[in-house]
């Protein structure tokens, strides 16, 4: 303690205290902000909007502006619709942790009820795509083969043949579609999050979207069949080449070492 008190008159003491205070505030905020808002359970639309607005002003307004009009740190949310809110928040992309090339998928910090309230509030700011219903995005009864063709025409160029993801320019990327909720896939197609273009119903019908979801459900889910064996990431010749070198040639060289090695000699007595 003596040491500390001896330094309290140091020219930088104020700066240190300020930094400390900021860190504590920020830390406490991070710890409590989502928890603070974890109540609110009212189904009435106006109440939902009201609650959503509260959530919004705490969690979103700093970047998107108090009325969703957008700032230099975040785009305007007027007219993006409930589907966009659900996609961004439920996949954990929003709220953003830090500015970067692209918002990564994270664990969602809001409950679905809260997301619906947020969505209701944003939808009230301007008309946009609503959240899809289960019948719209469930893969039942869809044409898988057609979905495959549509996927290869519209999606595979960024997301890879079976939705394993791929690179875009300057550090941006098309994420892997593994384990993504069909609802979120539907919403992504409809709203075009971040740099992804949108595929609105006018150019890609509801049926088309359903087919695509059914295709993905077949080729990229935990029940997907890989008849040949290990899928090796589904990345094509690069991972196959690595495998051939490391496990193929590697194993053969190990065998060759055994074949060519001299047999152990008997110990001299």
């Amino acid at each position, binding site marked *: 303690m003596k040491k500390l008190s001896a330094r309290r008159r140091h020219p930088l003491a104020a700066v240190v205290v300020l930094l400390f205070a900021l860190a504590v505030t920020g830390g406490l905020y991070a710890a409590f902000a989502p928890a603070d808002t974890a109540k609110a359970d009212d189904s009435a639309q106006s109440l939902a909007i009201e609650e959503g607005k509260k959530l919004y002003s705490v969690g979103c307004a700093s970047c998107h502006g108090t009325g969703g009009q957008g700032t230099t740190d975040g785009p305007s949310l007027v007219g993006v619709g409930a589907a966009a809110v659900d996609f961004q928040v439920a996949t954990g992309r929003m709220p953003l942790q830090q500015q970067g090339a692209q918002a990564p998928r994270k664990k969602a910090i809001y409950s679905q009820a809260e997301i619906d309230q947020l969505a209701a509030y944003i939808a009230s700011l301007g008309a946009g795509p609503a959240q899809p219903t289960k019948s719209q995005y469930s893969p039942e009864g869809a044409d898988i*083969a057609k979905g495959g*063709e549509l996927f290869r025409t519209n999606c595979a160029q960024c997301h890879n*043949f079976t939705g394993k993801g791929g690179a875009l320019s300057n*550090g941006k*990327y098309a994420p892997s579609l593994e384990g993504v909720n069909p609802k979120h896939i539907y919403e992504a197609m409809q709203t075009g999050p971040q740099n992804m273009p949108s595929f609105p119903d006018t150019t890609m019908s509801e049926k088309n979207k359903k087919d695509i979801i059914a295709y993905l459900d077949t080729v990229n889910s935990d029940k997907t069949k890989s008849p*040949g*064996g290990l899928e090796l990431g589904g990345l*094509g010749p690069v991972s196959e*080449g690595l495998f051939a070198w490391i496990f193929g040639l590697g194993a053969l060289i190990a065998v*060759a070492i055994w074949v060519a090695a001299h047999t152990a000699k008997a110990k001299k007595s």
Partner: protein
Amino acid sequence: MSTATTDNRRKAPAGERVADWADGRLGIYSLAKVNMRKIFPDHWSFMLGEVCLYSFMIIILTGVYLTLFFHPSMNEVVYHGSYVPMQGMRMSEAFKSTMDISFDVRGGLLIRQIHHWAALIFVAAMLVHMMRVFFTGAFRKPREVNWVFGFLLLVLGMFTGFTGYSLPDDLLSGTGVRFMEGAILSIPIVGTYVSMFLFGGEFPGSDFVPRFFSIHVLLLPGVMLGLLVAHLILVFYHKHTQFPGPGRTNNNVVGMPLLPVYMAKAGGFFFLVFGVIAAIAGLASINPIWAMGPYRPDQVSTGAQPDWYMGFSEGLIRVMPGWEINLWGHTLVLGVFIPLMIFPLVLAAIAVYPFIESWVTGDKREHHLLDRPRNAPTRTAFGVAWLTWYLVLLVGGGNDLWATHFHLSINAITWFVRIGFFVGPVLAFIATRRICMGLQRRDKEKVLHGRESGIIKRLPHGEFVEIHEPISQEQMHTLTAHEQPKPLELEPEVDENGVARKIGAGQKLRVKLSKGFYGEGTHIPKATAEEYREITSGHGHH
């Protein structure tokens, strides 16, 4: 002789009688006299060539099986096979028959996967085998011709692989073929003609699968088979090289006889290679065309790469800036044509090195003793520089996967490869040569002062020293058996009679190169007998 054999015929065992019959027509006894007990030295790296040979045989065996079911045709058909997610799709017959091999022919998928895995391993093994030959100097006289045969096999193997990869007419390979068409179009003057002739019209047309099929199953493997036989005959004729060691000289070859040891080891190794590849094919999927779908020129997937052996050319084309010159109504597509020209140059760089080395050294002797890589620092450094070049390009060929898996910017990787293409080999060369010299220095220490025993001894006056144990005569010989060539000297411009001599530019270059290869600062002079005696006869050494 004839009377003797007639007398013996009734008594001789059946095997001998068959051999007699064959000898009378084929002269097998004279052949066997030289070869039956032929000696092969033991070293794991000498078996890399066998990996190539055996994977080639596996590829031929499985390939013949595949031709029984594959239809090399681009006729459009509608799929009604057992893979549900493709029901009712339009595709070429080539694609459909490959689907059928994978899903409806029992064991067809296994054979397809063995074929493809063996192909990847075949080319990889050829490259490693070639590197073994390179780094140990096994390409020197009298084996230069065999080096060239081996190199041609590597190049032909790459193209056989590429044509095979294109046959199923799936979305991935179709993209590769499209790239090839674009590359052909970039050739000045004749590009469009070559493209039209190759594809029977505009891309993709309906001819390239049957044409690639003939090339893949007939033309290239035929040429390769011929080269392979010649390669093996020369290996037998030259007898195998060996590493220096006690009793191993340039005039002998020490090892075990073909019959029985190598018959069992090499024969057994074929089964080992086949077994490993079959197990891999049972465990790991390769080229799952059902996940890629049939080819359509307006569809594509990210991560469109060729098989690994074409990866360096993919790197070349990805990192090249988009230069294009339009003059007098013509277009020179340098952005594609330059990589197309560098592609063979990368391969040629390693292929011509043995001839450059033999010209620089002027060495006309036969070499059957291998060099340890450290004892030929310039050659080793060149080889590592070439490998670095190749690896940098491979990184470029997979830049999108590097970007996604290491969270990097694809543009940054492309720039890294552009710079690395020029800088990487130079740095690798310098670093490797230094490392080689460090290892040479250690060898010299070992010869002169013995092996570090790890035992610390305290001298009477308090100093601690590590005890060095002298090494055996065998080791001493092995560590000093290598040659250290002297650089060439320019002959004086005026000979002893005072007559001016003309020295050509070629000779000057040769002397300069020779200095660079073997001059000062390129190696550590190895221990001499005088040095050794001076140290061992002295006292107080440790």
